[in-house]
């Protein structure tokens, strides 16, 4: 009968493996897009595609500032660095900068329509009925030093409105000067030459990162060796990615190695046998295989984030294995079946409460959390089935005879909570934990910043800040997406949000923006401009103005014959920016408004929301917000799952017994956030998920303590201690990670599990230990 169950389970596992193999061969649908984590109603696939495309373009950009005290030397070094990189084929040079030719082309493009074009400030003056600022400016240019206003120009543009329009175009970063086709900027007696490059490969490919960054560093080193005094500042996703990869590799090998070695050592030292390791591995891996297969079957795909957390949650099934193996120490357990029977009630209750804990995540309206729930519930169930059905068959009959030193040590932990003489110690523990919790609560707040997912290299961040200060260039990835039924409506929408953006810019919400309509106003706006110019300048002012100047030639300033439109102006050369602002597809006309130096993403989002068809796109903020929502849901569900476990526990232990079983884990989950806040780690989705784990693990420990009695109590405590130690080794060590999110998860597990273990004996029966172990 028992064997029949084991065979059946084997059949299921074989089927699962076959299914997974099939899915793997046919292309595993592994998702990493934020879209997949959003509820269906919140999705905007078209917007997401545009965002992804822009993100890809941005991620390929690289800005390098080459600085030296001697400007000529700075230019020389910049040129050698640029040509070394370009010649390698790893980068393409950005557009060369020649603003003289560019200005000439611009003027040529706009000349015929000059009477349709007004700079923003000129337009504002005319709308306010103020012609004199424009006239004063023209006079002051005409009378001023040097002076570009030739007799010919006055004839064609008497009020000098076209130069004003051209000067107002948001083109070059203004604090930079341009020489020999390269931009440069002066700072503190250094000259920095700006190199704008585009990567020819994928910055997130590890191979490409290595090639590019090592070539860049080698060239830098060579230039600095031949002439000291070189300062290079770098900005680009590729540098961060390369540093992050290097960091993660180093970390994974050190933390991962320590954790694996520690866990193996712990089990080997305790059981002096390899068998528990092999069996534990079988239990956990069947759990994970079944979980992945089940999730794929139900959802059709698997999200990387869900996989990450799901796997951690399944990992706690090692605790059930440890319960089983610790029966090696129990003289009452004569063979595998007997061992199983003795731990079965505890394991069953533990699995049941854990499954309740994880199932509540299903209630969240977010596909990500649901996947975590399904993944972990199937995983835990499958692992425990493996323990129950296979362990008695795979395990050997004889107990290895391990002596009782460890068991005696474990029984001390019972005494701490049950021996009368430890009363003072107990009070001390309660007092210390309680006061840490109260003090920590004052420092506790939430932090959902998505940047915590990466360990951003500090030197690179400093360089980015310096580049931003010097040039205004930054790793900006925010933009407004503008959608409408046709091109002219797009331009009009942009024109309606421009005044709001200008106000936001003055309020410091952002440093600047670039929109298609600034380069090519809508036809409506162009006709309005002409009316303003004609009615408020030409008709009332032109005659007296020219007389004042003693101009006697003929004026050639007619209404343009046709307006300028995006389709009749080339999106290249001086206006190559236009091609990046137009993101239309054949059915969906769309523009973007590029934002730079955004300080108040939320404010801008609200602003954009005021005009239909305009949406703020801020990938980082989107992730942060999503993590914030996930955190709030997970926290709520954590409370709910504790509430749902209680009836089940009451059914077995009575209302009061159930409350005692709940106390250790509830205290652990409640005290952990304030305590880690004392150490500077704030509440995020990552430690909330850790709290879900702490609660499940804590209830397991309590259930094990509650289910055991008499002579088995020290053995059970040993198993709980081993479980806690192995969790600390696998999860707690993550606290050492320099990736904030991983660190947050790790430190929450570290503190939470220590607390859950510390308080676990409270759940046990109050009677002192029988016998004299």
């Amino acid at each position, binding site marked *: 009968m028992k064997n029949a169950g084991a065979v059946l389970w084997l059949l299921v596992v074989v089927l699962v493996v076959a299914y997974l193999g099939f899915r793997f061969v046919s292309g595993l649908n592994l998702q990493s897009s934020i879209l997949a984590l959003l509820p269906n109603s919140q999705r905007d696939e078209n917007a997401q595609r545009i965002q992804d495309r822009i993100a890809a373009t941005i991620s390929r950009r690289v800005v390098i500032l080459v600085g030296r005290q001697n400007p000529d030397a700075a230019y020389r070094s910049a040129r050698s660095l640029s040509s070394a990189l370009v010649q390698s084929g790893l980068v393409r040079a950005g557009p060369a900068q*020649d603003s003289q030719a560019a200005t000439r082309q611009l003027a*040529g493009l706009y000349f015929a329509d000059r009477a349709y074009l007004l700079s923003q400030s000129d337009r504002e003056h005319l709308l306010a009925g103020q012609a004199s600022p424009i006239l004063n400016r023209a006079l002051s240019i005409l009378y001023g*030093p040097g002076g570009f206003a030739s007799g010919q120009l006055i004839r064609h543009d008497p009020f000098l409105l076209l130069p004003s329009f051209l000067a107002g175009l948001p083109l070059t970063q203004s*604090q930079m000067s341009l020489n020999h086709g390269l931009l440069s900027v002066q700072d503190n007696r250094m000259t920095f030459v700006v190199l704008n490059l585009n990567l020819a490969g994928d910055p997130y490919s590890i191979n490409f990162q290595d090639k590019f960054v090592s070539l860049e560093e080698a060239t830098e080193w060579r230039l600095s060796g031949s002439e000291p005094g070189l300062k290079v500042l770098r900005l680009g996703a590729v540098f961060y990615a390369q540093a992050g990869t290097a960091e993660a590799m180093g970390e994974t090998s050190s933390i991962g190695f320590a954790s694996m070695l520690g866990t193996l050592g712990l089990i080997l030292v305790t059981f002096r046998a390899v068998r528990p390791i092999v069996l534990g591995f079988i239990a956990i891996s069947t759990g994970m295989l079944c979980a992945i297969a089940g999730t794929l079957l139900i959802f059709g795909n698997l999200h990387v984030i869900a996989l990450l957390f799901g796997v951690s949650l399944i990992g706690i099934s090692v605790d059930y294995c440890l319960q089983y193996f610790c029966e090696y120490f129990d003289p009452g357990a004569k063979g595998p079946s007997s061992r199983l029977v003795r731990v079965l009630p505890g394991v069953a209750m533990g699995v049941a409460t854990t499954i309740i804990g994880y199932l509540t995540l299903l209630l969240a309206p977010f596909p990500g959390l649901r996947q975590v729930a399904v993944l972990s519930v199937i995983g835990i169930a499958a692992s425990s089935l493996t323990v129950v059905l296979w362990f008695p068959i795979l395990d050997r009959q004889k107990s290895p005879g391990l002596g009782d030193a460890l068991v005696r040590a474990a029984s001390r932990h019972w005494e701490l909570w049950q021996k009368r003489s430890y009363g003072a110690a107990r009070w001390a523990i309660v007092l210390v934990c309680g006061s840490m919790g109260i003090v920590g609560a004052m420092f506790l707040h939430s932090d959902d910043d998505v940047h915590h997912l990466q360990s951003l290299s500090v030197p690179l961040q400093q360089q980015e800040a310096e580049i931003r200060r010097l040039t205004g260039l930054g790793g900006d990835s925010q933009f407004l997406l503008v959608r409408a039924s046709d091109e002219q409506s797009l331009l009009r929408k942009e024109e309606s949000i421009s005044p709001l953006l200008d106000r936001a810019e003055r309020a410091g919400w952002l440093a600047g923006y670039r929109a298609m309509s600034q380069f090519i106003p809508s036809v409506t706006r162009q006709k309005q401009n002409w009316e303003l110019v004609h009615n408020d300048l030409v008709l009332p002012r032109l005659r007296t103005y020219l007389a004042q100047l003693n101009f006697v030639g003929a004026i050639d300033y007619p209404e343009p014959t046709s307006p300028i439109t995006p389709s009749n102006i080339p999106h290249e050369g001086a206006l190559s920016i236009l091609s990046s602002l137009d993101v239309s597809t054949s059915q969906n006309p769309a523009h973007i408004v590029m934002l730079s130096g955004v300080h108040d993403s939320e404010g801008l989002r609200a602003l954009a929301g005021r005009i239909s068809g305009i949406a703020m796109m801020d990938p980082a903020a989107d992730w942060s917000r999503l993590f914030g929502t996930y955190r709030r849901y997970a926290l709520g569900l954590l409370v709910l799952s504790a509430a749902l476990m209680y009836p089940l526990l009451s059914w077995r232990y009575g209302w009061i017994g159930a409350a005692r079983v709940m106390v250790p884990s509830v205290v652990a989950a409640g005290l952990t956030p304030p305590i880690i806040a004392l150490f500077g780690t704030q509440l995020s989705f990552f430690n909330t998920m850790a709290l879900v784990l702490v609660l499940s693990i804590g209830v397991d420990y309590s259930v094990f303590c509650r289910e055991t009695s008499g002579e088995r109590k020290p053995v059970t405590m040993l198993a709980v201690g081993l479980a806690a130690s192995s969790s600390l080794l696998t999860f707690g060590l993550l606290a050492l990670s320099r990736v904030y999110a991983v660190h947050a998860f790790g430190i929450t597990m570290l503190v939470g599990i220590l607390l859950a273990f510390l308080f676990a004996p409270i759940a046990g029966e109050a009677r002192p230990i029988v016998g004299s172990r």
Partner: protein
Amino acid sequence: MGGDGEGLLTRSPTPRLTAQWDVHGQRLSAWLKIGLLIGFATSANAVEVSPERVTAKEVLRGRFTQERVLAGFSKPLVSTGTFVLVPGRGLIWQSESPFRTTVVVTDAGITQLVDGQEAMKVPASRLPGLSPLYRAMAAAISGDTAGLEKSFAVARNNDATHWSVRLVPSGVDGSMVAQVKSLTLNGSRFVDHVDVDKGGGDADHMSFTDQRAGPIDLSADEQSLLGKQPR
């Protein structure tokens, strides 16, 4: 990241438009250079002839009269006012007549103020060649005439009390400089007259008087003007 739009244009629209722009457009950037040349010229002389050199630690002040001849205008546009040249920082050009305006030229660009209000600012990045010219000016101030000969063919004509310099763009420094046909400076201790032939019937004639070089004694207003660079 900024590179996107500012690239070189490779394609001219139509020959007609291009031709028109050649007439008007290049002047947009050309005038700045001329402003600097005045500054350069004023100090160039100080280096060449005056025993009191205008060094990087000095400031040159004076009055100007500018007569601008433009094609299509029946009379020249005449303005007068004062100027302040601070080597290494910039030039403040304040007209008093026919109306009060202030133009500030620095390494970062040009700012024009009317009634204390910023009427126009053109960053240096819109004015290619500004930095080399500014450096040329600094070179002149420090007596490095070799630096000037990179951009101009220099012809000198000195006698015991007067001198004159004729600068013709050598074309090496790009076409913008070539917008000016020639510059003629003459004076005794300082530059007294500058004549700029801009071609097409346009020309500037400037006279400088009451010039004095001395230690840097900028007023708060002047300090803030020179700080008010296009950013």
